[in-house]
């Protein structure tokens, strides 16, 4: 049976550690020591003792970005929006891009430097930057 972790409360800090070797279905299984902690703003972060795991943007982040972009550009429902969609190809001008960045800042509680916002040209790039900023806040 795989070990699962569930948190019943977000208010108290939760610290769990796993042993280096555990018995799973009778077979030895190597696990590196992993601890999970809840960051101050409620976003979980995952750290290992050997290396930092950096994740590609979560699907829900990508989806939220898509929603914001759709709303800002007033895209018709039939316009396809993928992570690779370029804002400029959707008709965004620089004022739209700045407004999108502002909405993302509000939605995710982050602050985007103007230099970074120049590099946000697709949904994926926006989502990746958001994840990076959210993680560095944690």
């Amino acid at each position, binding site marked *: 049976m795989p070990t699962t972790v569930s948190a019943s409360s977000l208010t108290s800090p939760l610290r769990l550690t796993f042993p280096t070797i555990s018995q799973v279905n009778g077979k030895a299984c190597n696990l590196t020591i992993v601890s999970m902690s809840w960051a101050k703003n409620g976003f979980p972060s995952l750290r290992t003792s050997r290396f930092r795991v950096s994740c590609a943007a979560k699907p829900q982040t990508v989806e939220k970005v898509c929603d914001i972009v759709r709303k800002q550009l007033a895209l*018709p429902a039939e316009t*396809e929006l993928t992570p690779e969609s370029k804002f400029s*190809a959707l008709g965004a001008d620089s*004022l739209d891009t*700045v*407004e999108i960045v502002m909405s993302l800042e509000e939605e995710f509680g982050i602050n985007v430097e*103007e230099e970074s*916002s*120049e590099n946000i040209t697709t949904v994926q790039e926006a989502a990746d930057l958001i994840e990076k900023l959210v993680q560095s806040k944690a």
Partner: protein
Amino acid sequence: MNFHCFQRSFSPASSSYQSPLVPVNLPSPMETHFWFVLPDQIRSSSLMNRYSELLSPCEKDHVLSMRGDQLRKSALLARALVRTTIARYVDQTNSLVDPKSLKFRKNSYGKPEVDWENADWQPAPLHFNISHTSSLIACGVTVDAQIGIDVEEKARKIKSHVLAFARRYFSSHELEHLSAITNPEIQRQEFMKLWTLKEAYVKALGRGFSAAPFNTFTIRFRPVIPKGEIRVLKDTDKKASEIIVESFDDPNILTSNWQFALMELDGSHYAAICMEKAKLVEGKEPLPLRLSVRRTIPFVEDECITGTNML
């Protein structure tokens, strides 16, 4: 790329009225030629096809990458406008330059410019910059001076509140200026004017937005006191004022290389132009920025716009 005509148009912008491009004289020092196209005036599919034939394969790909007919049309018209406009100036001999033959490249910061390498002729050092909204596409041209332009619909509504936006992105002086305006509609209009001027400045600098973040410089109207008069003019006295930019890196030094113009086009758009000042000739007065505005439908008609509403 083929464009289908969705409605019959009886305007002159139909294939039977097409003619060669009319050549024009080069802009003089401190003069900007401002050309614009109104996409709604162009409905002929044969005209659109003619425009698309001017584009390089790369430009065609870019047009096709746009999502939606209107966006594709805008992108096509923008490239056609740049090519046909530059072509009018390039060859001052009797033979017309083919707009299709022009080559373009981007400078190290990504600003588009004409690539004269391998050209057969010695052209003047033309500079250009384009800007478009869904309803107006513009191209500004100068000789030997950096230029940036920006056009926006007057009626454009931003999603956030004007002051929230200004607090986040504009300079404190500009925020103060906007905060002092009580009428929300006027406030929104002043915001749009500031936005276009700031955009035009950054585009003229040509080094990308990170080289001049919006909150590091202020654009404002400064009263111009005519020589010999001692008069106190209000900051809002636009009739005798000039637009200036101040950089926060050193607030005591005006960023005086740049000259601005702001106008209202077609009753529906704000257009801002930022142009590098001509080098001063010893003993001579600096030249004021002159503007020559032309509405065009390339290969069909050109119209000089006089009495443009300068703001």
